[in-house]
């Protein structure tokens, strides 16, 4: 029986922009349907439309029927009824999605008390029951807690429990695990699957992650630019994509399973990057295996927070990267990988240990201007979010030129030439030099950030989750770009990431961090194929793939007791 039936649904903004163009999809009772696409594809908009939450002033066409009732153009009272009984929604970021100023209990019982008119004790009993259903350890205690007292994974369970308070027939999940660590993601997915099965709900699962969609959905719809590009059996679409867009998307999606050459993947609007000159030049210096370019010797960092037990962020970590090589540091949030990067870049001071870059000691945090300049000439960092790391009022060219002028005495003309040179290296052109970040896409911004980091020709480039905020196709472009620059210039790279699949594409060597300690290290391919440490194995097993066995994973999780 069809639960949700969207047919030929269009949505236009007041200014005439068409955001959704003839979207049709169905979800049957008990079915899990994936809605896959990159940012701006309209997948979240489609999902919100089911609950009548369109942008203000938008005009709609076609039909969205939930449980036989038309949602489009329904009066406000009917929309409230839809939200109160027919469909529930789980949002992406539980930190943002649960009111930080109210207790967990208030979040859960609010609709029960205010909408269903239940008594406080009755509502709390129901809330406890739901918290137990999503496998939270101490339901009664959690009711009195505030969101900041719970971890992201626990909060997402609260969000799921909150969506279930209305016993919905359809559960819409909008990227419910994107903000979470990979092991936590596996847990949340298994909770969602269990609830869907026991309650016989239909589930509309929105994600940008094709691997995830293929591993948990019955059918998927692939969306791009407001249209459905392809639909069909989830695994079939993943293994044998028909539409050109889906093929590109599958190709760009990094996997830990397939072993292939680190070749460039050309997808989407990557043409400008692909056509950029790729002349192979000799490595600037002979590879010297004796002295590593970056040599970090048992550094440690402990944070002493006021009134709290000290946090050992990094414990006795040692890494070495030979010239021209790339090392990945992999770990979940709180593993200390970013602290490690920040100490190397000189944004934090190490408590003990030593950091050598190209044989020069760079342990101390630079204080004076000359020290800062010297440090930043040797190590440069590309940050996670190019929307935040570029000054919104400074054009791309100026941003790079400023860096050049700070570190050298180039004339204006030479500096400009060099800027264009750098922009070309990252696959951008003269027209991008005058563009302010606002007018650039996420991928273009990250290219500018990389060009800026390369401008001073650093000995070591640190990339801290530099592709995590990007769409898969853009991520693929940026990864190719880094691979290309490494080939051409023999750049030494420290690549911080939570994503094992991405790491496989970029780095020869990988270390795995957990709670500040390096638990395993080795060649990336070996480490991914034959992990020795149980934590590495758990990480690998938690990465979604089409033949994913969640029950087995849950078993590992419990028997080996590897907490997040």
């Amino acid at each position, binding site marked *: 029986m069809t639960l949700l039936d969207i047919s030929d649904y269009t949505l236009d903004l007041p200014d005439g922009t068409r955001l959704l163009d003839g979207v049709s999809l169905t979800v049957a009772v008990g079915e899990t349907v994936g809605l896959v696409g990159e940012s701006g594809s309209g997948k979240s908009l489609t999902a919100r439309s089911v609950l009548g939450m369109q942008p203000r002033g938008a005009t709609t066409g076609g039909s969205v029927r939930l449980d036989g009732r038309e949602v489009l153009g329904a009066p406000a009272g009917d929309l409230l009824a839809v939200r109160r009984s027919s469909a529930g929604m789980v949002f992406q970021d539980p930190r943002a999605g649960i009111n930080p100023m*109210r207790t967990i209990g208030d979040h859960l019982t609010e609709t029960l008390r*205010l909408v269903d008119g239940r008594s406080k004790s009755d509502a709390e009993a129901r809330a406890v029951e739901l918290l137990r259903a999503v496998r939270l350890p101490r339901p009664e205690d959690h009711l009195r807690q505030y969101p900041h*007292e719970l971890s992201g994974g626990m909060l997402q369970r609260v969000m799921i429990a909150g969506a279930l308070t209305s016993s919905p027939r359809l559960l819409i999940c909008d990227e419910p695990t994107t903000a979470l660590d990979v092991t936590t993601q596996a847990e949340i997915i298994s909770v969602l699957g269990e609830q869907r099965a026991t309650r016989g709900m239909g589930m509309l699962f929105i994600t940008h992650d094709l691997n995830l969609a293929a591993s948990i959905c019955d059918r998927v719809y692939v969306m791009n630019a407001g249209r459905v590009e392809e639909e069909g059996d989830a695994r079939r679409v993943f293994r044998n994509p028909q539409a050109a867009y889906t093929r590109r998307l599958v190709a760009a999606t990094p996997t830990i399973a397939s072993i292939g050459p680190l070749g460039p993947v050309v997808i989407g609007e990557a043409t400008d990057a692909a056509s950029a000159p790729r002349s192979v030049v000799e490595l600037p210096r002979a590879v010297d295996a004796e002295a590593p370019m970056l040599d970090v010797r048992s550094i440690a960092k402990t944070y002493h927070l006021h009134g709290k037990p000290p946090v050992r962020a990094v414990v006795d970590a040692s890494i070495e990267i030979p010239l021209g090589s790339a090392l990945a540091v992999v770990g979940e949030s709180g593993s200390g990988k970013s602290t490690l990067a920040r100490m190397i870049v000189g944004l934090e001071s190490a408590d003990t240990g030593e950091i050598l870059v190209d044989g020069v000691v760079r342990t101390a945090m630079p204080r004076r201007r000359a020290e800062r300049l010297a440090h930043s000439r040797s190590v440069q960092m590309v940050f996670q979010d190019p929307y935040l790391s570029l000054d919104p009022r400074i054009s791309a060219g100026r941003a790079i030129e400023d860096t050049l002028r700070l570190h050298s005495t180039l004339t204006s003309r030479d500096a400009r030439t060099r800027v264009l040179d750098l922009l070309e290296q990252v696959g951008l052109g003269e027209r991008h030099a005058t563009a302010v970040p606002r007018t650039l896409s996420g991928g273009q911004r990250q290219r500018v950030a990389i060009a800026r980091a390369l401008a001073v020709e650093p000995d070591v480039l640190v990339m801290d989750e530099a592709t995590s905020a990007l769409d898969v196709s853009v991520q693929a472009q940026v990864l190719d770009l880094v691979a290309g620059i490494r080939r051409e210039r023999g750049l030494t790279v420290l690549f911080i990431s939570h994503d094992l699949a991405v790491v496989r594409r970029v780095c020869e060597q990988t270390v795995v961090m957990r709670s500040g300690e390096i638990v395993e290290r080795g060649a990336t391919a070996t480490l991914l194929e034959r992990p020795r440490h149980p934590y590495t194995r758990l990480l690998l097993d938690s990465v979604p793939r089409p033949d994913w066995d969640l029950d087995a994973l849950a078993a590992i999780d419990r028997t080996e007791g590897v907490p997040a």
Partner: protein
Amino acid sequence: MTAGRRVAGKLGALLLTLFLASLLVFFSRFLVPGDPVSFLLRGRKPTPEAIAQVTAQYGLDLPPWQQYLQWLGGVLVGDFGRSLQYRQDVTTVIGERLPVTLGLVLMAGAMIAIVGLTAGIIAALKRGRVLDRSVLVFLTMLGAIPSFVGSIVLIAVFAVQLGWFPSFGSGEGFLDTLYHLVLPSIALAVVFVVLVGKVTRSSMVDQLGREHVEVATSRGLKRGTVIRRHVLRNAIGPILTVSGLLVAGLLVASSIVEAAFGLAGIGSLLVQSVDRLDFPVVQAIVLFVVFAFVVVNAIIDILEPWIDPRSAAGAGAR
């Protein structure tokens, strides 16, 4: 950190602030030109003996730090010395006038809260629309009217032309006092409404865009409930902070309004006492204003964990 320790810490900071303020208030008089003794003996040709006697009588012959300690000792038991112009205890002089100013400030505060919050909420809910812009323009316009101009306009229209309200004095008895304070309160409130209105608007607009508001909406709560429980509730913090900062401004601005409406409050008393070098009164009033400001803001600080539970967990929690 426990709530008790936090409150104790705040109280300690409050006492320190008051102590520093007392130093500033007391010693600033030595920077001001003019000699209190010549004011006391104005119009006469005093003999040196008379000068010495008056100087000793008011303790002005002691070194400044001893004068300070004497003064502070008195202040701690509620004795602010004698007013030079009224030849009465400062406490008596201020005590007669304080209720008028407090009434004025409280009534103006209530008006600011009601009008500012309402305007801010309306503007936030209609953000980007004509009503939002009109409210903002109107508030900004009000904020640009100085209190003395506002007072004159109000007197001219509502007291003289329409005759609805009295234009002078503070009246007899409670209700009559309230009635007399209506126009002065409006004149005082007008300038400050814009601050509260704008903070309310921006704080609410910030919350309206948050995902937890969308989540609440998706769960089938009525819009009014969502606004009340999730938008307004979370927007309170900045509004309270700004309101606390307004206290000093209100007390100071009241002097202008009191003068315009012929009210015998501490604001007009302050102006008059400065004019006549009546240092004990000036010191007492300034200390009172500082005290009121610091205490109100300390209370708001202490309330913070109840307003935003994250602040109790320290800066580390987001």
